[in-house]
Structure formats: C-alpha cells, structure tokens
C-alpha cells in the first residue's frame, strides 16, 4: 500500500503531507484490525485442538505459495476489486449500496447473453460489446434504486436488497431447464457457452487469471479520477459529506444520488461480466458468488478510498483462496476464515476497540466519509 497509495490526491507534496499527517493513525487501523483478527483466529484454532502454525502456513501457502496459488488469488481479487469499488463509490455519495450482488448478477446475465447470442463479430468488437452490455446491466440495476430514492425518497438499502432478490430469482428462472436462456443441449441448468470471440483472454496460461484483472486495475484509477479530478466527483463527494451544503451550493442532490448509484451499479456489473466472460463462460443456475456482499466489507476495510480497495480485495482473496489448504493442513473448518473476516470487519467498523487496544489517540472529530445516513432523508 505504498507507491499507488501515495498518489492519492495526486498532488504536490505539501498537500499530501497535510493529508497524511491527519490520517496516519487512521491508516494504521485496518492493519491492526487484520492483525488482531488473525491473533484471535489463532486462539480459536488452538482452542479447537489444531496446530496454529500449520493452519496459518497452509493459509499462506494456499494463497501465495505457488504461481498457481497467486494466480487464483488474483482471479478472486478481480471481482472483489470491482465490486468493492462499487460499494466505495456509493459510500462516497452517502449511499449504502447493498445491491452489488444483484448488479453483479445483471452484469453477468447481460454479458453472457451478448456472449453467446451475437454471432459473426470479430473479437475486438464482440468482447468489448459483451463487457459494455454487462456494465449496462449493472448500471440499470443500480440506477433503479437511485432513481427511487431521488424521486420518492425510498431508502436505497431496502430497495437494493429487494433488487438483489429480483436479480437472483430472475436469473434462476431464465437459465433453468425450459427457461428462455437454458442451453437445451446441456443436462445441467445453464446458458449456452459464450463464443470464443467474447472470451476474456487468459493472461498467463495455463492459469485461469484473465484480462478482467486489467479492467479492475483500470477501474481503480478511473474511479479515483472520477472522484477527485472531475466536477462530477466533486459533487458526489460533497453530497455524500453534507447534502445540505451541496444543495446550498447549487448542486442537485437527487441527480447525484442517481448518478452515483448508476456508476456503482456499472462497476458491480463489470465484476459480473468479468466472471462469466473470463472464467465460467456460461451462466449456471445457482450462480452464487457472494462477491456483492463481501464487497461491502472490502469497501469498509478500504475506508472507501478507491486506491485502497485493491489491497483490501487481495486480502479478502488471500483469506478465501488459502482457506482450502489451511483446512487440509490443520484439519480445521474453512468456516474459521469467515470468523477471521468477521473479526476484521468488526474491528474496522468499531475502530474504538482497536484504538483502545493499541492506545491510538482519537483523531479530530471529522468524519471523512458518511457511510449511511439513517432511514429518513
């Protein structure tokens, strides 16, 4: 978390010193949260009678111990990064987008549809088209709750949760046996495979790591640029930090709600598109990802800063990818990883605990990001 992270603000050096001195204790907290969570995890492993060194060695080796392990970790970090950016962008506008999961589904659905049904295009047209339409699917799914909030004042948390159900069940119906998108030649419920011209190429064959990673990296910088280098981002952040002041300054709060939710959905949609175009090449029924929900944790851990999101995503990917070997080596359940993840989130969210544990002083009482804003308006 150094070279790129230092660029935040992208600014002369005095500015970053000022910004950093204010936040340095803030930055220590995610690290200490992870460390503390792993320590408590060790206690749990020890209490269950397994070997702590074996378990953590397994975790580490599984995730980073081999080229294949590293590649798989990055495969998982790719959708995590995109979906994490989606949630972080929402937070920046004061919106709690719990709908990344549904937007992810829509992205996958739209992308796979273009991927198998549009024929006769060269790869440099077909692939971008499939990605674009996937992003559009996510954008649509994000824009709807954004629009409902702007127009009717209904809370985005409720609506994005509901949109998740609609997305999951709709995909289920579409790809199941006798469904409109079911591949009749297949015995399992899934869509037809996408054409080679719509497939995201592998980066280092034979590993599964695909070009979606490049999209994710690009997205990190695009979101950073959007938030800090454009008037749109200025408005989104102002609305997120203080909607009353934003309105006073002549910005349209409701327009920014719709925009932020649309951008957020686009990013989650890209994550879904990447999964089907780069990995599965089909959309199976029961395509349960969990990426959408984990991405909330990732955005929180990254303090909603786009440049920190990939690091949080990689951490989550390590925990998820290494869990298998940990289980084999130490004979403990992979669920332990869920405990560690939950502890990380608890410590990041309730950073008072970490501040107290490590005697970190309270910083000045200014919240940089408003995560959510209650149930009213």
């Amino acid at each position, binding site marked *: 978390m150094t070279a790129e992270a230092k660029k935040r603000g992208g600014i002369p050096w005095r500015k970053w010193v000022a*910004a950093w001195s204010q936040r340095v204790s803030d930055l220590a907290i995610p690290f200490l949260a992870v460390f503390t969570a792993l320590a408590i995890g060790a206690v749990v492993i020890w209490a269950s009678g397994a070997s702590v060194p074996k378990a953590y060695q397994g975790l580490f080796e599984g995730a980073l111990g081999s080229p294949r392990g590293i590649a798989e970790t990055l495969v998982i970090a790719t959708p995590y990064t995109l979906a994490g950016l989606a949630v972080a962008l929402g937070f920046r506008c004061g919106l709690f987008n719990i709908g990344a999961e549904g937007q992810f589904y829509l992205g996958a659905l739209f992308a796979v549809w273009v991927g198998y049904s549009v024929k006769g295009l060269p790869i440099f047209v077909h692939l971008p088209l499939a990605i674009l339409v996937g992003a559009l699917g996510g954008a649509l799914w994000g824009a709807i709750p954004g629009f409902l909030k702007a127009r009717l004042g209904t809370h985005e948390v409720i609506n994005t949760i509901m949109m998740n159900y609609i997305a999951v069940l709709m995909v289920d119906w579409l790809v199941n046996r006798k469904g409109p998108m079911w591949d009749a030649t297949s015995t399992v419920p899934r869509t037809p495979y996408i054409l080679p011209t719509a497939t995201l190429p592998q980066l280092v064959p034979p590993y599964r790591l695909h070009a979606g990673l490049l999209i994710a990296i690009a997205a990190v910088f695009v979101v950073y640029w959007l938030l800090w*280098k454009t008037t*749109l981002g*200025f408005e989104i952040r*102002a609305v997120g930090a*203080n909607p*009353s002041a934003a309105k006073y300054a002549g*910005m349209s709060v409701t327009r920014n709600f719709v925009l932020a939710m649309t951008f957020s959905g686009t990013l989650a949609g890209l994550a879904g598109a990447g999964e089907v175009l780069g990995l599965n090449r089909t959309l199976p029924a029961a395509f349960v990802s969990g990426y959408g929900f984990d991405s909330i944790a990732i955005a929180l851990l990254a303090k909603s800063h786009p440049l920190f999101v990939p690091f949080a995503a990689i951490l989550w990917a390590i925990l998820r990818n290494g869990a298998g070997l940990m289980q084999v080596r130490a004979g403990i359940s992979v669920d332990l990883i869920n405990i560690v993840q939950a502890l990380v989130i608890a410590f990041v969210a309730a950073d008072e605990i970490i501040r107290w544990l490590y005697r970190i002083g309270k910083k000045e009482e*200014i919240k940089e990001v408003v995560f959510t804003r209650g149930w009213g308006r």
Partner: protein
Amino acid sequence: MALALEMRGITKRFPGVLANDHISFQLEKGEIHCLLGENGAGKTTLMNILYGLYRPDEGRIFLDSREAHIRSPHDAIAQGIGMVHQHFMLIPVMTVAENVILGMEITRRGVLDRSQAARRIREFSHQYGLDVDPTAYVKDLPVGLQQRVEIVKALYRGADVLILDEPTAVLTPQESEELFRIMRSLAGQGKSIIFITHKLKEVFAVADRITVLRDGRVVGMTTPKEATESRLAAMMVGREVILSVEKKPAQMGDVVLKVEDLQVKDDRGYMAVDGISLEVHAGEILGIAGVQGNGQTELVEALTGLRPVAGGKVVILGDDATADRPREIIEQGVAHIPEDRHKHGLVLSFPLADNLVLSTYYRPPFAYGIAINNDAIDENGHRLIAEFDVRTPSVYSLAGTLSGGNQQKLIVAREFSRPIKLLIAAQPTRGLDVGSTEFIHQRLVQRRDAGCAVLLVSVELDEIMSLSDRVAVIYRGKIIGSMPADRATPEVLGLLMAGVKETEGPTGDRSDR
C-alpha cells in the same frame, strides 16, 4: 463574605489544546458573577468541569469551603449546582410541573403526586418572582417562560449555585430585563449565580463582579464600576477593538430584491412566512430584526431557493426568481451567508480550498468541461485565505478543524469572491467572538458601499442597529413594522419583536405577566 464556590488552579488539556490553564475562580454567596470571554476562551470547559461533565487534569473545587469531588452532573446537582443550558432540556408535551419533577418524582403510594409538585413550584414563584403556571404545557409557553421553567427546575433540585449559559441569546430585550430582575431577586435571597455571556451591555446591567477569560487563562477580575465596555472588549480580545461600526450614509440605488406577499411553509407544514413584502435597494443594508423562530430561517431559505415558495413572488434584478433553483439564484449574483454554517455553509470534511469553490467549482478556471483544475482551486484558496485573514495551517486543512470565527470568515471569503449584487446574510456573526464580528461587520459595510444590496437577518439587536440603513421587524411570519435606522431604538424594536404594534402601546406585552 463567605464563598459559595471556589475553583483553584483548574487545568484541562485536550489533544493539542490547553482549554483551561490554571484557572482560579471565586463565587461569593449571593453574588452574580459574570464569566466573560470569546468563544474558545474556556468558559464552557470550565463550567462543564464544575457541572461534572469533564474531569479536570489539575486543580480543586471547593463548595462552602469544603473540597468537592464532582464526577457527574448527578454529583453536581446533589451538591447544589444547577445549570441552565443554552438549549433547553424540556419536554414540550408535558406540563411545567411534570417537567420540573422529571427524574425526581414525588409519589404517594406509588402514584405521582402532582399537586405537591405544583405547590412547591408556586412557592418558588412567590419567593423569587418566577411567575409560571405549573399546569401549563411547556409547548404553549414563550421562550422566556420556558427559560424560567429551567430555572425552577434547577432550584427544585436544590441548587444554590446556578450556572446560566448565554441565557439571553433567545430572548427579546424585555424578556432579558425580566430575566435580570429574577437573577437579582435570586441573588438577594442568597443564591449565587454564574452568568456566562459575551454581550458586554448585559454585564453592566446585572453583574456584581466580572471575570474575563482569554485563551484558557484568567486575564482579569473587575467590577462594572471599574470597567468600561471598551476596556472589557480589549481584555477579551487582547487588543483594542472598535465596537461601533463606522459607515457613511447609504447611497441607495435601484431595487435589487423585491418580495411580494411571500408565503413559505416550515418543515411541519405551518405557514412560517405569512405574507411578507419588502424591497432591498442597491447600496443599502436592510436589517430584519426579530426573536429567533419567527420565520427568518424560512424567509432566507425561500429567497435562496432552498425551500419552495407557497405563495407570492420573489423578484431579483427584475427577473422572477420565485421558482428558481439555488444554482440559478447564485448565478444571478446572489451571495448567501447561511445561519447554520455547519449544516449549509461548509463541507467540514473538505479542505479549505474546496470549500472556497463550493459553488463555482464547475466553471473556468476551476474546471474545464468535467476536468477539475486543482491548481487553480489551490491558488484561489491561497489568495482568499490571505485576503480574508483565515487562520489556518494550510489550504489543505479540513474546514472542520477551524474555529467558528475562521469558518465564518471562510464562508464570507467564498461568497464575496464572486461578483455579487445581492447579499443575504443570516446571523452572520452568531457565536463569533468580538474580533471576528468586527471583521465581518466591516466587510458587510464595504460591500454595501460598493453598491451591493444587503439583506441582514439577525437576532442580535446591536448588530441590526449598528449595520442597518433600514430596519424591519419580523414577528410570527409577518413584517410587523419597519423604520429608518435612526428611529430604531432598542425599546421600539423590542416591543415590535414581542408582537406589540407601535399604535397599541405596551399593553398585552407578555413580559408584563
């Protein structure tokens, strides 16, 4: 005379700030002791220590010459210290009696004994001239009476030392007079009062002794007889201060703002502005006086596009702006100093430089297309901070780290950085110290002299009278009277602020009760 309270060598540090630096303070029995100081001087911290909200790092507190350990407001109350906060802690839907006994209810066989509570309240009323009806609902009482309920509440809990935190901020001049009468009556019967204020005139009206704080230290103790207003102001600020605003006669120009029969609803749907008509000309300051909560907030929000207009018309520079959005109004050359600088004026988590372009960020040179030009924004920040003397480590500091006075200067800097034809200033110096107030007043008059039309809305009579060329008084959503500034005396304005029209005379004034 015996000491009711003594604080010795009180020191309180907050990260980076020495809020109280070995403060010693003595309160005699039956004394009204005024604690005078600018915001951030440490008055509130000191009183919060006395009331058990903070623990001092050093120092000791003595009550009746015995050392007292006050760990919580509960302790403070038990030891006879009562506090009346600036914001009342009353439950509007309950009666006076219920509010007073809340938390220490008298019961008879498990049933609330309201009649005994009412009897005690009547006793106090009789004894101290705190006339208040125990069976009335708090929500039906005017602010002045609600404050009395707070005082009764403190006395009911056995307070011998009473802390009044800026008690006159919400009162009309007549209500303030009434409060001072009550304070004298309480002191005459042995109660000791700590009176916190930054209004110099009040100090002379009521205080027996005055302690002045600055930068967390006691800079002096004096009496009204020995002190003068300018002497006290200089003690508070640390330098000589010009108390009156010097200004030339107004050079009135064309009508800039014209409001016709304006109606605006408040958040609850009641008509808060009920048929206001007024005109503001270029080169003049129209002051709107009135007690807080008589429709000023809604009036200003309607004029600036933040609140929908329910009826009537707003015309700015000849254009109908009744249904305009905030940005359209801003682009017509309207500046707005909002009454709540934290809610509307600033994005506290943004750097100063960004706050200074909050309404102009989308135009050259700050942005071309959608691309923001951070260099231009920073450059603009440096320039304005120097010009408006905003005290800050850098333009990259977050607005929330500044003191109230500097935050207000930041807002004024931003609003004055555009070419403006109309300035709407709502409570522009609320909560500011003498130094910042002086600065902002000078800037307002400068704008007026440059041909800007200024609508000044303030609850501070001194501010209205020293700045305005014409004065209008708002009462329950209507302009109840208006006059040229030379006819606007505190007496005339005070009666109007209480809802008494000039022709009616002082009968029906609620402070007569």
